[in-house]
């Protein structure tokens, strides 16, 4: 919303520097996005009349123009444009004048002819982008005047951002009212002066849809269509609208001034000389002023002529059929109140947002329609020879009564933390149009006041809304800042959140960097990662690449690894913690949303001078899993060889926590790597972190280390290739019993001597008792139990 200061001053004696006024506007929530001083860069440009035009003797495209700056001393300029005629008043920048961009004029020769300055096009004056020709001013413009005065350029325009709750501030008068209140100066909204009425053939008005159009004012009359005078054109231009003709300009002017959108119909073109307001038929069409045919639905409101032929989409845009034109002599002026949600729906569905719809959407003042129509006729009279006809039509079956809201002084202070009295509160509200009336006896003794809310403030329905008004005008930054004192101080992270932080820290320590990938993926992303290309779909994705909710983190993380590889960074270790989305459980609407952890390791590890390079393999991923399990102190977790989507068969394992599979770890399938353009091996894991973080943890209880010596034995078994080391270790640990202090695999060995599909697994076992030194016999017995158990469970034989 562009608010020229000169226009605001029509309503209140507003004084102050532009920056101070901007601060005040910001302070009351009318956010200043920019301050424009359109004439700031122009100096010394004057108005002149064209006296004579002749061709430049040496240049076909140039003209020699004699102009009169008002003092009778004609001067000659060379000009490249030809859109003016003798007698036109145009802007002239004489030598010494300044134009935007720091351009200072000098007298100079152009193709041998002296030019005393130049005539200016609008773009040269910084007024618009128009460079189609010299700017032609109104014929009655006085000569020799400073152009800034003539065009009203010695002005400041505030570009304001108006929040959706402030329909009143979508008008110059509304901004002036708020600003005047903040500055403590009086605000006056002049009452439109009446003018002589004439008799015209009466028009008719029927409102079929009063719920969507609670009020419709129609005022007919006679007008003479012509270009607007300079002041009108300037004000509209400064407020960001293009002047069209005096009649149309008046409707726009009043909309900007009072916030009430108006529409002028050519009365002669309204069939049956009347208006019908009705709902559209499903599929009905209308061609709007922008020459687009619009198809309507039964939820759209139409303004039709008396023959029920559509003439406008109510509150959004007029139709071409009854547009005011140069031959219009009688108009029907519409000033209506359409309900906000209806206009919002229509404008949203049509993708058509206009100055008019923007105001109706927020809610216009139902009790301001007649005044706006009268104001328009006052202006028609002034600049369009307008004469209103007798018998204004006003369909307002159920007048909107202003509501009353009770405001408790104590409540104001409770919410704001202020110490305001009833009178200061009243002093903030009254200038905004809230009319206080003391509550009748017995209602409240401590300063509750009932306020009548002006109907231009539909946002103020409740006590809290009035409290906001008090806060705005008291000044948010004048409220003393305090700190809340929790009555029951608690807080801190939950064990789940602590655990997640521990996992992050552990993975950082293990050399991984954290990635954030999009939770929106494409079916192709999933297919590339070896997963079914399915997921929960979006209703309205912007791009196919972001059409599914990810069912796993790994596809995105693999893509991130591929991105790095593509940028010459083939060796990365990344992890991500994020939500994944599975179809809703039966009977529920929301997805089964889980938190997952994924890890990807690519390329070569330890590219160091003191060690040989080594490509990543599944053990690297398992190592990171161990780090996570260790950081959390998981009580019961293991890996079970298992196939998993996207992993290389035979080189993957299920992650089992508390007896339940929570994910997979291993090496990424070569086909997946090929699709993603990842050359080397890729190790990866993905687990349901929600499960991991809530899994059972080792008990944290101290056990005093035994003082007695340990007995260590090494056992190498020959087993079938299919026997997992982890399973063998669990068997041994079970057989070894409570005296086992530590166990680990220290060698895996295969040879021809062992035979095909056989391997040797060597374990180190350390036994110790807490209360004595173990005897050779005891250790020998334990050793035999281990050997027997291995033979029984895995068909293992002790390697000789």
């Amino acid at each position: 919303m562009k608010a020229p200061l000169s226009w605001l001053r029509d309503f209140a004696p507003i004084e102050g520097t532009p920056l101070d006024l901007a601060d005040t506007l910001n302070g009351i929530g009318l956010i200043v996005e920019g301050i424009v001083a359109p004439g700031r860069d122009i100096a010394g440009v004057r108005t002149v009349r064209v006296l004579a035009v002749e061709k430049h003797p040496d240049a076909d495209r140039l003209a020699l123009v004699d102009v009169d700056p008002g003092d009778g001393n004609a001067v000659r300029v060379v000009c490249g444009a030809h859109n003016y005629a003798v007698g036109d008043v145009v802007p002239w920048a004489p030598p010494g004048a300044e134009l935007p961009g720091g351009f200072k004029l000098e007298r100079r020769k152009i193709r041998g002819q002296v030019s005393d300055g130049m005539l200016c096009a609008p773009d040269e004056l910084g007024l618009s982008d128009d460079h189609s020709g010299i700017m032609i001013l109104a014929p009655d413009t006085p000569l020799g005047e400073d152009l800034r005065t003539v065009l009203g350029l010695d002005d400041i325009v505030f570009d304001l951002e108006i929040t959706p709750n402030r329909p009143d501030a979508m008008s110059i008068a509304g901004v002036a009212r708020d600003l005047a209140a903040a500055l403590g100066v009086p605000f006056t909204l002049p009452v439109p002066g009446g003018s002589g009425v004439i008799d015209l053939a009466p028009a008719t008005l029927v409102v079929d849809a009063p719920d969507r159009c609670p009020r419709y004012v129609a005022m007919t009359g006679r007008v003479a269509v012509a270009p607007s005078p300079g002041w009108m054109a300037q004000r509209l231009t400064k407020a960001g609208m293009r002047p069209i003709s005096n009649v149309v300009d008046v409707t726009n002017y009043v909309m900007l001034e009072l916030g009430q959108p108006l529409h002028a119909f050519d009365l002669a073109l309204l069939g049956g000389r009347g208006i019908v307001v009705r709902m559209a038929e499903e599929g009905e069409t209308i061609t709007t002023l922008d020459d687009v045919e619009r198809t309507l639905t039964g939820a759209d409101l139409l303004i039709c002529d008396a023959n029920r032929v559509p003439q406008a989409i109510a509150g959004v845009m007029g139709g071409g059929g009854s547009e005011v034109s140069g031959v219009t002599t009688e108009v029907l002026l519409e000033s209506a109140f359409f309900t906000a949600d209806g206009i919002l729906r229509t404008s949203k569905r049509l993708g058509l947002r206009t100055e008019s719809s923007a105001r109706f959407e927020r809610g216009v003042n139902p009790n301001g329609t007649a005044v706006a129509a009268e104001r328009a006729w006052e202006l028609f009279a002034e600049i369009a020879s307008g004469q209103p006809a007798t018998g204004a039509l006003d369909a307002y079956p159920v007048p909107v009564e202003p509501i009353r809201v009770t405001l408790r002084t104590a409540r104001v202070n409770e919410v704001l933390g202020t110490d305001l009295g009833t009178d200061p509160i009243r002093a903030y509200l009254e200038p905004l149009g809230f009319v206080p009336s003391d509550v009748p006896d017995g209602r409240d003794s401590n300063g509750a006041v009932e306020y009548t809310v002006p109907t231009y403030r539909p946002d103020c329905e409740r006590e809290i809304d009035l409290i906001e008004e008090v806060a705005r005008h008291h000044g948010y930054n004048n409220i003393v800042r305090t700190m809340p004192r929790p009555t029951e101080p608690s807080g801190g992270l939950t064990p789940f959140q602590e655990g997640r932080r521990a996992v992050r820290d552990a993975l950082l320590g293990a050399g991984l960097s954290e990635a954030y990938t999009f939770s929106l993926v494409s079916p192709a992303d999933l297919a590339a990662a070896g997963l079914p290309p399915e997921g929960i779909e979006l209703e309205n994705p912007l791009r196919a690449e972001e059409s599914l909710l990810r069912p796993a983190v790994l596809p995105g993380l693999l893509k991130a690894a591929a991105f790095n590889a593509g940028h010459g960074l083939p060796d990365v270790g990344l992890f991500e913690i994020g939500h994944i989305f599975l179809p809703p459980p039966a009977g529920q609407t929301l997805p089964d949303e889980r938190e997952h952890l994924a890890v990807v390791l690519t390329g070569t590890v330890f590219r160091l001078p003191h060690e040989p390079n080594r490509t990543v393999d599944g053990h690297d991923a398992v190592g990171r899993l161990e780090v996570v399990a260790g950081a959390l102190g998981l009580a019961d977790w293991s890996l079970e060889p298992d196939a998993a989507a996207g992993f290389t068969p035979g080189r993957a394992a299920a992650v089992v926590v508390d007896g339940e599979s929570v994910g997979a770890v291993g090496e990424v399938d070569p086909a997946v790597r090929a699709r993603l353009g990842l050359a080397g091996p890729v190790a990866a894991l993905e687990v349901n972190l929600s499960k991991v973080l809530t899994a059972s943890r080792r008990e944290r209880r101290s056990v005093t280390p035994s003082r007695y010596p340990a007995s260590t034995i090494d056992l190498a078994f020959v087993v079938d290739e299919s026997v997992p080391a982890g399973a063998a270790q669990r068997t041994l640990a079970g057989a070894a019993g409570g005296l086992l202090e530590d166990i680990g695999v220290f060698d895996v060995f295969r040879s021809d001597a062992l035979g095909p599909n056989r391997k040797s697994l060597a374990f180190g076992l350390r036994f110790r008792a807490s209360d004595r030194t173990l005897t050779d016999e005891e250790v020998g017995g334990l050793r035999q139990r281990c050997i027997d158990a291995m033979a029984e469970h895995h068909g293992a034989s002790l390697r000789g």
Partner: protein
Amino acid sequence: MTLEELAALLDAEQARAKDEIDKAETAAALEESERAFLGKRSALSTVNQSIKDLAPEDRPRAGQAVSAYKTAVTERLEARRVALSDSAGEAVDRLDLTLPGRGAGRGHLHLITQVQQELEEVFLGLGYEVAEGPEVETDFYNFEALNMPPAHPARSMWDTLYVKLGRPEEVVLRTHTSPVQIRVMESRQPPVYTVMPGRCYRRDTLDARHSPVFHQIEGLVVDRGITFGDLAGTIDAFTRAYFGPGHTSRLRPSYFPFTEPSAEFEVTCFVCDGAGCSVCSKTGWLELGGCGMVDPNVFRAVGYDSETYTGFAFGFGLERMAMVRYGVEHIKSFFENDVRFLKQF
């Protein structure tokens, strides 16, 4: 040997030992000196054997002299041994410790996680807890309970991505973390002192400033007697704690459906410390987020009595915070996961 002779001998030997020991250049030479001055054939040995011939009353003093000699020579030997070992480099293989160390090295936390955790810490220190919620939400939690009934015009403030679940437009990708406010309040009665970080979604095309996926953090306080002054004070306290002393905040009226009064808050520009720079458009202030007093309609949706309790909420975007604070030019950098970017932080 008399006591005097004995003492004189030890003094002379001690002086000689000092010279010899200091001259020793190798461990072997030092061992030689040790034998010469403390060994079986040393003067010490001779003195020890002669003590028994002394008068009984002289024996303690002789013993003291012997002890002093042994201590002095031993210390000298030790000192020399240490000195020699310090310079005994040629005996071991040199280790070039300027080579990179062994180990996986330390990784890097994503910048958004870092910013989020730093912010969480500030509020944990103020006694808040951290709450989380689902990223896919029903219309009720994302809009309706936040005082945006169906067709409320303020819904157009967010470009919403809808999920093909439930009734049409019933399930959304949350456009803000505010639904977590509702879930927290539904789950219990006040007091509530909570921050809610999380991932949010908007129907935006990825460009320098916008991303369909982004992160927010919100705060919610509900208790008896919470005021707008408490809100302003909390924003101020957070500003000081996070950006450092000398940083302050200011509020200006704004509009959000779920707060009333509503405000936007700005903080002293942390690039120029308020002097005015290109980042803050020469104003000295950076617009950070929105805040306000919880609207009574929100309390009604969760069954809180708005006469008994008042509360405030605030929120802002983590990407924007990180971009301004660390000079990140393109929001895309947060989601490309280029390790050259990740490793900067």
